[in-house]
C-alpha cells in the first residue's frame, strides 16, 4: 500500500520535472530564435478566435449567476448596490482567468495532446527529428507563445462580458439602482485586481500549452494511448490551474499589498 503510494508520488514528481524540462527547452528555443514564428498566427487563431465563443458564454453565465446569488444574500442586509462590485472583483481576479483557463484547457489542451499524440504514433514526430527539426521548435514553442498571448485577451473578454451580463441581470431583472451599483463597482475594483487576473491568465495559458504538448509528445502507442493522453491533458491542466491559482492568489495579493 505504502509502496504503491510512494510509486505514484514518484511518478507524479517525474512528470512535473519533465514538464519543467519541456518548459526550459521551449523557453530556450524562443530566446535563441530556433522556433518557427510563422506558425504563430495559425495557433493564435486556433487557440484564441476558436475559443472565444465558449469563453464568452462561460463568462456571461458566470457573471449572471454570481450577480443573482450575491443580490439574494446582500438584499437581506440592504447592500443591493454592492452586488456589481462583488461580481467585478471576483471576475477580474479569480473567476475570469480561472474559468477561461479551464475552458481553454478543455478545448485547446485536449486538441494539442490529440494532435501531437497522433503525430507521435504515426512517426511524424520522428520524421520531424529525422529532418533535422527539433519538435520543441516546431510544435511546442509556437503553441506556448500563442497561448500566453491569447489567454489574457480571452480573459479580458470573459471579464467584460461577465460584468455586462451581471449588470443586465442586476439592473434589468433584479431592480438594483444602476448609478450606485456602477459607482460602487468602479470604487471597489482596483487596478491590482485586473493586473492579478491578467498575470494569472498568462501563467494559465502557458500551463495549458505545456501540459497539452507534454502529454501529446509522451503519449503511448495506439488509439488508446492517444485517448488517454487527451484525457490526461485536460484533467492535469485543469487541476494544475486550480492548484496554481491558490498559490498565485496568495503570492500576488501579498505582492500587491506590499507595493
Amino acid at each position: 500500500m505504502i509502496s504503491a503510494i510512494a510509486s505514484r508520488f514518484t511518478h507524479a514528481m517525474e512528470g512535473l520535472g519533465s514538464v519543467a524540462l519541456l518548459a526550459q527547452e521551449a523557453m530556450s528555443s524562443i530566446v535563441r530564435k530556433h522556433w518557427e514564428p510563422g506558425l504563430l498566427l495559425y495557433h493564435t487563431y486556433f487557440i484564441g478566435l476558436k475559443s472565444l465563443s465558449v469563453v464568452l458564454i462561460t463568462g456571461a453565465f458566470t457573471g449572471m449567476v454570481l450577480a443573482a446569488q450575491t443580490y439574494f444574500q446582500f438584499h437581506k442586509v440592504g447592500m443591493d448596490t454592492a452586488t456589481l462590485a462583488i461580481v467585478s472583483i471576483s471576475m477580474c481576479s479569480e473567476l475570469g482567468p480561472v474559468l477561461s483557463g479551464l475552458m481553454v484547457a478543455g478545448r485547446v489542451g485536449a486538441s494539442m495532446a490529440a494532435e501531437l499524440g497522433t503525430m507521435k504514433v504515426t512517426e511524424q514526430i520522428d520524421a520531424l527529428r529525422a529532418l533535422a527539426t527539433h519538435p520543441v521548435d516546431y510544435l511546442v514553442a509556437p503553441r506556448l507563445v500563442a497561448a500566453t498571448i491569447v489567454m489574457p485577451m480571452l480573459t479580458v473578454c470573459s471579464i467584460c462580458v461577465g460584468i455586462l451580463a451581471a449588470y443586465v441581470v442586476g439592473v434589468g431583472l433584479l431592480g438594483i439602482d444602476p448609478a450606485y451599483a456602477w459607482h460602487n463597482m468602479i470604487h471597489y475594483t482596483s487596478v491590482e485586481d485586473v493586473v492579478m487576473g491578467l498575470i494569472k491568465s498568462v501563467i494559465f495559458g502557458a500551463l495549458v500549452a505545456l501540459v497539452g504538448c507534454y502529454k501529446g509528445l509522451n503519449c503511448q502507442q495506439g488509439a488508446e494511448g492517444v485517448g488517454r493522453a487527451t484525457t490526461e491533458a485536460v484533467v492535469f491542466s485543469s487541476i494544475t490551474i486550480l492548484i496554481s491559482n491558490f498559490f498565485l492568489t496568495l503570492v500576488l495579493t501579498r505582492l500587491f499589498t506590499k507595493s
Partner: protein
Amino acid sequence: MIEARGIKKRFGAQHVLNGVDLRIDDGEAVAIIGRSGGGKSILLKHLIGLLSPDEGEVLIRGLPIAHLSERQLLDVRKEFGLLFQSAALFDSMTVHENVAFPLRRDRQLTSAEIGMRVDEALAMVDLPGTGAKRPAELSGGMRKRAGLARAIVYRPKVLLYDEPTTGLDPIVSDSIDQLIKRLCEQLRTTTVVVTHDMRSVRAIAQRVLMLHEGKIYANAATSDLFASTDPVVSAFVKGVSTPKDLLL
C-alpha cells in the same frame, strides 16, 4: 562511414539488440535483414540518433553520437535522409509542403528555388504533378515515393530506408526497388535498406547484414548470402518455417 560498436537496447524485459557491431562505408548499398520484430527498424533508428543505445556507441564519420543532445544531433541528421515504413508524411500538409519542409526550415533558399527543388525531387521519384494532393489522397506506393522525395530533396549523403516495400503489391514493390537503385546511383549516396523482402535485397544491396537474436549473425556479399548453406540464413532466404516458428 557509419559504425556501430556493441549496441545493446532493451525495452522492459525484452532485449532487442544484444551487442550489434557493424560498419558501413561511404557509397555502399547495404541491406539489413532479419525476422519481423527482430530489431531491424530499432537498429536503423540508432544509426540516425532517433534512439540511443543502453550500451555501446554509434559513430558517424568517427563522431560518437549516442550521447549527444537532441539539438546537437540535428546537425548530424542533416547528412541523412530516412524513408519511414509508413512514409510518415505530415498529414496536415500537401505533398508539395511535405517535400519543401526541410528546405523551408533551413531558410537558405528562396521560394522559387524551393519550388524548383521540390518539382525536381518529385520528378525523380516519378510523382510529377501530385504536389497539391494531401497524403490521405495517395496510394501506399505514392506515399512511399512522396516520403522518398522528402528524404532526398535536401541531398543527403546517406539514405536510410525502413521496409520500403512492406504492404505493397509485387509490381509496385519492384518499381520502388528500381527507384532506390536508381537514386543510389544518381545521387551517389550511401544506402541502408532494412527489409525482409528478399527480392528487394537482390535488387538493391551489394552487401547484406543479417540480424538474428539481437546480433549481426551474417555479414556477406549479396550473392554469397543467397548461396549460403548456414541453416539460419538459408531458412530465412528461402522463407522456410519450422514447427517452432508456428508458435511465434
